[in-house]
């Protein structure tokens, strides 16, 4: 059984017990435990079920590479799925539930899937597209439904806060092991700005467990000194519990700090995402031990060899009383020695190599441990926990020579450097056949904008498994990074280290090497996604030659651990099946983040009211207080209508239209774009930007203008006012302000850089109110100030002056067809001006109106709306706007494009008005039906609706639409489709429904 030992446990405080629950069971651990170590202390080997076959699974590793031990953590607003037990630090009150079990962890019906495993082969999902459909529906689906998914989705709002943090450093060191500490020290001593991060809560990595001697003192003492030195330096930032998660172009690094996961509190943010701009990056990310592929290597109690000694040394827990070590290298002997020293039994070391010698092997032998060379594990015995191993010859096919009782198997297939961060941005790898590992190729690092490398890898991550060589490498990396970052670098000495000499590893990709199908189909490669040796071999047989194909076909390495344990073993199996060398098969792509990071940390502060900026006008508060039913327009929210008690939105819209047409309405038009264009060449410039002439507009006057893209399509429209000799003010649509500003700058900076024109976006400087209706003049006259009479301020002109107490510019323009003024005042005066208008307008029953009333009134007048009548494929000619296309001008943006044959084609659909025969409203998006079918068997069309409303003025449905030869077909009735499958007939009419002669606006 697994239990707490009397000795060991350098990270746990045995004076402080903490309580937690697992699947409702109350358990105890110590402060400093991880959830995984505390589970071992409570003899809880079984922690979850596998994804596909629901096999019992236990903890395999002791760190971020753990594939199995994922749990649903906590409840409600604290809930977190897929928490790794091995990286979850224990605290009092923690609750965990295992995932993927049904109905319970101990008794899982889903495990029946294993009996169906021959129906769930590699490429299952792909094959199911071919197989008979009923089988899918009645057999696979019901079973797989219960198997699918990992953790549960959170149901409650996350109660915690998250934040981002931007920093710039010279040298970013990822990894707080002895290599990372060495690199950081070397770089820091040059005076460079250094940041060092470590993903766990503790410094020193593996060295503090395996205890090499560094600079003549113990690794633990050396690490403590190094951390103290770094912490005392002003130019250095060190952060534990902070994972270097991703490396991106230009030396951008994302680091994920888990601030309160180990000690939940409301006071501090839970996670902080560091957005680091580094001149140089050192990845001292260590290595991950590889599992061995033998049958039953997924039974709870089978762990990585180093993890077994980590649990004993760091947490003082044993995985079992009797540990069999299975290895192909010397390092795993350290586990056997550590177990023995902890007073535990090691029945045997099974070494797959035919022969090996070295000090670690000698030490093990001296402790009386039985060593079996040239042997392998045929299979592991036990279901929910290990009960023993069957031993065979590694060179054979799995014939059992002997069975050994044990309750823990410590396996080691060698070490794979963690090359993820090196590779994220394009660092290349070499296959080192002798060491059986991919290691970074220093000659092919990720390259920055200057063509030079910006990532240096150090220590074990660079393939230096021995401490002394690793530290020399890390020291050199630190200096090289500082130098490349611009620091002055003096020669300095690297730390020296002594550890036990190790013999050569012998690659073992399958155990035994001639394992039969029955064994291969129980030898797991990817624990989390349930991929076995036999699956990868099947994929190769079925033609998946590329590793990327095999990955997708088998899902190898596609789980949340991204194949940290499985990738190299899977590759090796694939290369063997393809008869290719491992480097020729290649690796899959390493993508950030290194381990999953919380979605909330990515969002940072962007939640609730800070989720997205919502632009507000000076009058927005009034709108909100007065029933505004908002709609998004760009990043603004504009009132669609102001809904009063007892009204529907539709009622409100109709009321607003009627009131405005009959008396007085107000529109908050502040969101309209306002661009100042100034300079000696401004007229010439605007003549290019607009289709009509703007250079000859007289000071004091306004003109409606159209803008097209260089491809001829309508892009924006609005009223332009000539302010003075050199200055024009261009109104744009609400959504177009920033876009048209950028568009103007683009042409000025890239094409007409020698023209004397400056543009400024003053949209937000001005609050603008449309004062509309037969009583518009009266209300302004009541406020007093400038003369707004027909004579003093004629239609399509503007004047500046005071209206009441307000600094105003008044434009006589109308988008409604009524007598209308648009009054601009400084934004700071906007709300007071609005209030003054409401007060003065009371006797006229003044009402503000929303965007829907605005739309209806302009449609009644047949005015087009950018985004309704236009959709990026419509040209002014389609909308009968030829009058706005200057014939005098030699050129304007879009002119030449509009002469292309397709644009000049008389068959283009053209704008007309539409009146339904029955008075109903044509549904938005309706098409006019034509005879026959097209080549795809779809019904032909001859037009479509672009705007359609109920008109409270006409008291019937009105619409505009683009219709084939429309203007030539006045009076003709055509048929439109409806969403419910029926149709509606409409008569083609002139698009101006109301006040065709424009008498109302010109009074």
């Amino acid at each position, binding site marked *: 059984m697994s239990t707490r030992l009397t000795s060991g446990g350098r990270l746990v405080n045995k004076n402080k017990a903490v309580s937690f629950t697992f699947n409702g069971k109350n358990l105890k651990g110590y402060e400093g435990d991880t959830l995984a170590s505390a589970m071992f202390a409570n003899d809880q080997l079984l922690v979850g079920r596998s994804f596909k076959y629901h096999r019992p699974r236990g903890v395999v590793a002791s760190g971020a590479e753990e594939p199995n031990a994922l749990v649903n953590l906590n409840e409600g607003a604290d809930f977190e799925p897929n928490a790794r037990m091995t990286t979850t630090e224990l605290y009092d009150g923690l609750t965990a539930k295992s995932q993927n079990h049904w109905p319970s962890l101990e008794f899982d019906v889903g495990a029946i899937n294993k009996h169906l495993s021959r129906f769930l082969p590699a490429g299952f999902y792909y094959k199911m597209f071919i197989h008979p459909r009923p089988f899918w529906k009645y057999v696979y689906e019901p079973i797989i439904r219960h198997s699918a998914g990992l953790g549960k989705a959170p149901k409650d709002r996350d109660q915690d806060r998250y934040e981002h943090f931007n920093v*710039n450093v010279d040298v970013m060191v990822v990894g707080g092991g002895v290599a990372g500490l060495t690199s950081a020290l070397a770089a820091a001593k040059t005076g460079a700005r250094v940041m060092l991060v470590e993903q766990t809560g503790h410094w020193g990595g593996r060295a503090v467990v395996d205890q090499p001697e560094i600079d003549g003192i113990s690794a633990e003492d050396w690490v403590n000194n190094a951390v103290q030195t770094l912490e005392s330096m002003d130019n250095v930032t060190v952060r534990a519990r902070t994972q270097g998660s991703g490396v991106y172009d230009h030396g951008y690094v994302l680091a994920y700090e888990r601030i309160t996961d180990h000690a939940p509190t409301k006071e501090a943010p839970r996670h902080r995402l560091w957005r680091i701009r580094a001149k140089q990056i050192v990845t001292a990310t260590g290595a991950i031990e590889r599992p061995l592929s033998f049958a039953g290597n997924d039974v709870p109690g089978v762990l990585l060899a180093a993890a077994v000694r980590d649990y004993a040394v760091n947490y003082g827990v044993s995985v079992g009383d009797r540990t069999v070590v299975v290895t192909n290298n010397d390092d795993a002997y350290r586990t056997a020695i550590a177990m023995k020293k902890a007073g535990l039994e090691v029945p045997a070391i099974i070494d797959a190599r035919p022969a090996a010698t070295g000090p670690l092997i000698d030490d093990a032998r001296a402790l009386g441990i039985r060593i079996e060379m040239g042997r392998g594990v045929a299979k592991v015995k036990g279901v929910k926990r290990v009960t023993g191993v069957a031993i065979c010859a590694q060179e054979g096919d799995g014939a059992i020579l002997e069975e050994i009782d044990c309750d823990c198997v410590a396996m080691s297939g060698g070490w794979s450097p963690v090359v993820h961060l090196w590779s994220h941005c394009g660092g290349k790898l070499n296959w080192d056949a002798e060491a059986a590992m991919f290691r970074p190729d220093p000659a092919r690092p990720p390259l920055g904008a200057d063509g030079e490398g910006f990532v240096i890898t150090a220590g074990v991550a660079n393939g230096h498994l021995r401490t002394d060589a690793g530290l020399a490498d890390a020291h050199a990396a630190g200096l090289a990074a500082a130098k490349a970052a611009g620091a002055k670098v003096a020669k300095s000495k690297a730390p020296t280290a002594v550890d036990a000499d190790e013999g050569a590893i012998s690659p073992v990709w399958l155990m035994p090497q001639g394992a039969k199908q029955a064994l291969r189909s129980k030898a797991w490669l990817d624990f989390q996604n349930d991929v076995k040796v036999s699956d990868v071999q099947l994929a190769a047989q079925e033609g998946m030659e590329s590793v990327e194909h095999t990955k997708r076909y088998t899902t190898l390495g596609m789980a949340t651990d991204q194949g940290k344990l499985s990738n190299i073993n899977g590759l090796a199996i694939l290369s063997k099946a393809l008869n290719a060398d491992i480097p020729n098969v290649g690796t899959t792509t390493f993508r950030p983040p290194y381990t999953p990071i919380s979605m909330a940390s990515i969002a940072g502060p*962007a939640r609730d009211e800070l989720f997205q900026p919502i632009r507000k*006008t000076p009058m927005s508060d009034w709108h909100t207080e007065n029933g505004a039913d908002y709609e998004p327009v760009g990043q603004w929210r504009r009132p669609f209508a102001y809904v009063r008690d007892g009204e529907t939105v539709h009622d409100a819209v109709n009321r607003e239209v009627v009131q405005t047409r009959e008396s007085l309405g107000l529109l908050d038009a502040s969101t309209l774009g306002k661009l100042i264009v100034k300079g000696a060449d401004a007229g010439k410039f605007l003549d290019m930007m607009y289709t009509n002439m703007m250079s000859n507009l007289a000071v004091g006057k306004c003109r409606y203008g159209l803008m097209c893209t260089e491809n001829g399509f309508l892009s924006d429209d609005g009223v332009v006012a000539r302010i003075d000799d050199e200055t024009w003010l261009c109104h744009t649509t609400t959504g177009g302000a920033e876009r048209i500003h950028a568009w103007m700058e683009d042409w000025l900076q890239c094409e007409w850089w020698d023209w004397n024109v*400056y543009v*400024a976006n003053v949209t937000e400087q001005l609050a603008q109110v449309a004062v509309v209706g037969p009583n518009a003049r009266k209300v302004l006259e009541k406020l007093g100030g400038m003369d707004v009479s027909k004579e003093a301020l004629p239609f399509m002109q503007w004047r500046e002056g005071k209206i009441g107490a307000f600094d105003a510019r008044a434009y006589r323009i109308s988008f409604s067809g009524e007598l209308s003024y648009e009054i601009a005042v400084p934004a700071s005066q906007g709300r007071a001006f609005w209030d003054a208008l409401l007060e003065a307008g009371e006797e006229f029953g003044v009402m503000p109106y929303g965007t829907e009333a605005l739309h209806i009134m302009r449609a009644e007048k047949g005015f087009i709306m950018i985004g309704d009548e236009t959709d990026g494929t419509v040209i002014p000619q389609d909308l009968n706007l030829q009058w706005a296309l200057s014939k005098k001008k030699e050129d304007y943006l879009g002119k030449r494009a509009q002469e292309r044959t397709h644009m000049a084609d008389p068959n283009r659909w053209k704008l007309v008005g539409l009146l339904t025969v029955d008075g109903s409203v044509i549904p938005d998006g309706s098409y006019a039906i034509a005879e026959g079918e097209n080549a795809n068997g779809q019904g032909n069309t001859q037009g479509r609706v672009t705007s359609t409303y109920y008109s409270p003025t006409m008291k019937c449905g009105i619409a505009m639409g683009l219709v084939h030869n429309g203007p030539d077909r006045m009076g003709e009735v055509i048929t439109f489709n409806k969403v419910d499958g029926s149709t509606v007939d409409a008569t083609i009419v002139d698009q101006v429904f109301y006040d065709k002669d424009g008498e109302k606006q010109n009074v």
Partner: protein
Amino acid sequence: MSNSVSALQGKVAAGEVTVREGGLRGMITIRGDLSSTKLQNICKKISGVAFPKAGKANIAGDSGLAWMSTDELLLLVPHGDTDAAIEQMAKALKGQHYLAETVSDARALITVEGDYVRDVLAKLAPVDLHSDAFKVGDFRRTRLGQVAAAFWLREDDTADVICFRSVADYAFGLLEAAAKGGRVGFH
């Protein structure tokens, strides 16, 4: 002018680092040839401060000059003084190609004050706020979260932030949340 109000009307979020809306400030966007002596002189005359180098701002009380880009400058004056300033410029720069437009009310000014003010800004803006890299006198156009903004340090523990008026409450909310999130301990 009692009719004039700033976007957040002096809203305050007090704490270890306090966020305070700074009220109305006169601002003029100037586009022009920044190497022009005439332009430099009139800007200096109006603001009473030295002409700023690239990436810098010289601010004294309510007045100052901030470098916005190679052909753009921000002139700060008391809120009521913009029209007079623009007239002065028009006289001084007659015949020269330039643009000067009042943008006072297109902006909001937010002051952030407290000893970890650099941490607060660094939570929201991709700017190197290390004391070696960003000092009093430096000026940065950047973004806060998802909106455009610019800031400078009035003093070592006090930053003035400007953003568009329409997103003033968003920017204020971000700064408030960043301040409440506490010290990071990096700067």
